[in-house]
């Protein structure tokens, strides 16, 4: 990479040549037995793969970037890297300001604790001063529209309530950079509208938003940039409408490919049956 020329633009996120590598040998619940087996067999050499490679982009204040792509393209990994949860294997990443990153809203709640306790706990995990959290508590509860359930353990909540509370916490903390992963599809129609308004508000307050979504309507209507990821690489980046078009075209093509594959398998199976019948 050539040394970066810093433009006077006040950027919120700067990503250069980002790569994230997973070592499959280390991931997924190892036991000593599997480790020994791996050491003994040494099969398949290095089981490593790149979840993301050569990703570069820069987001200035006020921009909201939609990351789209098929399943397994590395969208969620990208958000995790931006949030600082996963460390990049290569490349440079610079996110300025406070980040809010309840990526899968409500998934990290403590089931045994009440909603109120979880608000305080989430705030503490996010590194927000508890006095600030005490001030915000009521507005978080009001926005999430949980009612009396706020003093009941989270395990009694419906998934919608959990997601609403998660969204409410993630967005109440005035983040400079908001990272959202497939969260706008949660909740009822009313809450969906409310959350759209909230996201737009945050984006309008000259703060950056990166969101992963499958809702193409959202991408074209509310994001001012879009990025298409496929197999961990940036395939296209630019105006939302064009990127969405490319994505739709790509997914139609891969769908056609999959169907062709399916037909081939079916044809082979049918042929096998015929051979079997002929032999008899």
């Amino acid at each position, binding site marked *: *990479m050539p040394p970066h020329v810093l433009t006077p633009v006040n950027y919120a996120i700067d990503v250069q*040549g980002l*790569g994230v590598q*997973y070592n499959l040998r*280390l*991931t*997924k*619940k*190892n*036991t*000593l*037995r599997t*480790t020994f087996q791996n050491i003994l067999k040494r099969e398949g050499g290095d089981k490593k793969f790149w979840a993301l490679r*050569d990703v570069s982009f820069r987001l200035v204040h006020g921009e909201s970037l939609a990351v789209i792509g098929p399943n397994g393209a590395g969208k969620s990994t990208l958000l*995790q890297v931006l*949030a*600082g*949860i*996963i*460390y*990049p*294997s*290569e*490349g*440079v990443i610079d996110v300025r300001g406070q*980040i809010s*990153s*309840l*990526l*899968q809203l409500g*998934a*990290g709640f*403590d089931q*045994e*604790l009440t909603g109120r*306790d979880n608000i*305080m*706990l*989430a705030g*503490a*995990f*996010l*590194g927000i*001063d*508890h006095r600030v959290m005490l001030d915000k508590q009521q507005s978080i509860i009001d926005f999430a529209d949980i009612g009396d359930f706020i003093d009941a353990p989270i395990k009694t909540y419906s998934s919608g309530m959990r997601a609403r509370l998660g969204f409410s916490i993630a967005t109440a903390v005035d983040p400079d950079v908001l990272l959202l992963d497939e969260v706008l599809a949660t909740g009822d129609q009313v809450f969906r509208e409310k959350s759209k308004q909230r996201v737009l508000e945050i984006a309008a307050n000259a703060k950056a938003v990166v969101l992963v979504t499958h809702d193409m309507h959202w991408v074209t209507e509310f994001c001012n940039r879009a990025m298409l990821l496929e197999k961990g*690489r*940036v*395939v*296209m980046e630019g105006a939302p409408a064009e990127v969405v078009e490319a994505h739709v075209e*790509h997914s139609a093509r891969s769908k056609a490919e999959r169907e062709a594959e399916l037909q081939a398998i079916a044809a082979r199976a049918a042929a096998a049956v015929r051979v079997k019948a002929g032999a008899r």
Partner: protein
Amino acid sequence: MQTQTTAVAPSRPRAPQRGPVVLLREAASEISQRRQLIKYLVQADLKKKGADSLLGNIWWVVDPLLQMMVYVVLVSVILARPQPDYPLFIFSAILPWKWFTSSVGDAITAVSGQDKLIKQIKFPKIVLPTASTLAGIANFAFGFIPLMALLLLFYRDRISILLLLVIPIGIVQLVFTMAFGYLVSATNVFYRDVANVSRHALRMWFYLSPGLYAASSLDTIAKTHPTIMKLMELNPFFTLFESYRAVIYGGDTSGPFVPNFIPLLILLGASLLFLLVTTLVFKRAETSFAKVL
């Protein structure tokens, strides 16, 4: 369909490997900055343990008593090993040992049990085993209720002001437990059989420590196999049990006495060193937690 050229960048900057001093300093500042979070986590832990069952924290009082009864039956009835005031003798080992095993058990799942959270929020993971170990102190503290009851009801002659010395001895144990907690909490992320192994390893550890028996009963081993004795004395719980027993129980016929401070101080030094090492291990492993979980 690739619109991007695959011109490979000449150099790929990698995250620099950070030195031990930097990591240790980072760990210290993380713990001091996230005091509030640790406090919440400890509170949540205690709240959950109390709310789990109908009797709540009563179990922390009853549990060591029941365990004591099991050992009393085992040792003084079945094995017929005479030891004056055996219930108190054994209780002085059960209390710290229960504290240690429950803290280790909690530490094992402290990180791996929070997998969802770790994947969605960036926070210093070291707060998790720190909080679980600190919450474990309550287990020890509650154990003093049955201990005091035992002393007041049956062993009034063994009550002494020296009982207060359990606090410095407990601090030594806390340092060792914290260090051990960091190690197992990080290891269990990568190898899930730590929990299974630990159950048996801890039981063996207890039997190898002078908990059920007095260290003096090992005198014959000390004479015939001095190296084995030396190894047994390296066990932190050799020193800890002997010290607790000195201040809670005392001698066979005499009351509590001041424990030998030299092995305790050596153990404290060794535990602090161990803590530095396991903190480093934890900090090195931390960066891959979110990927592995």
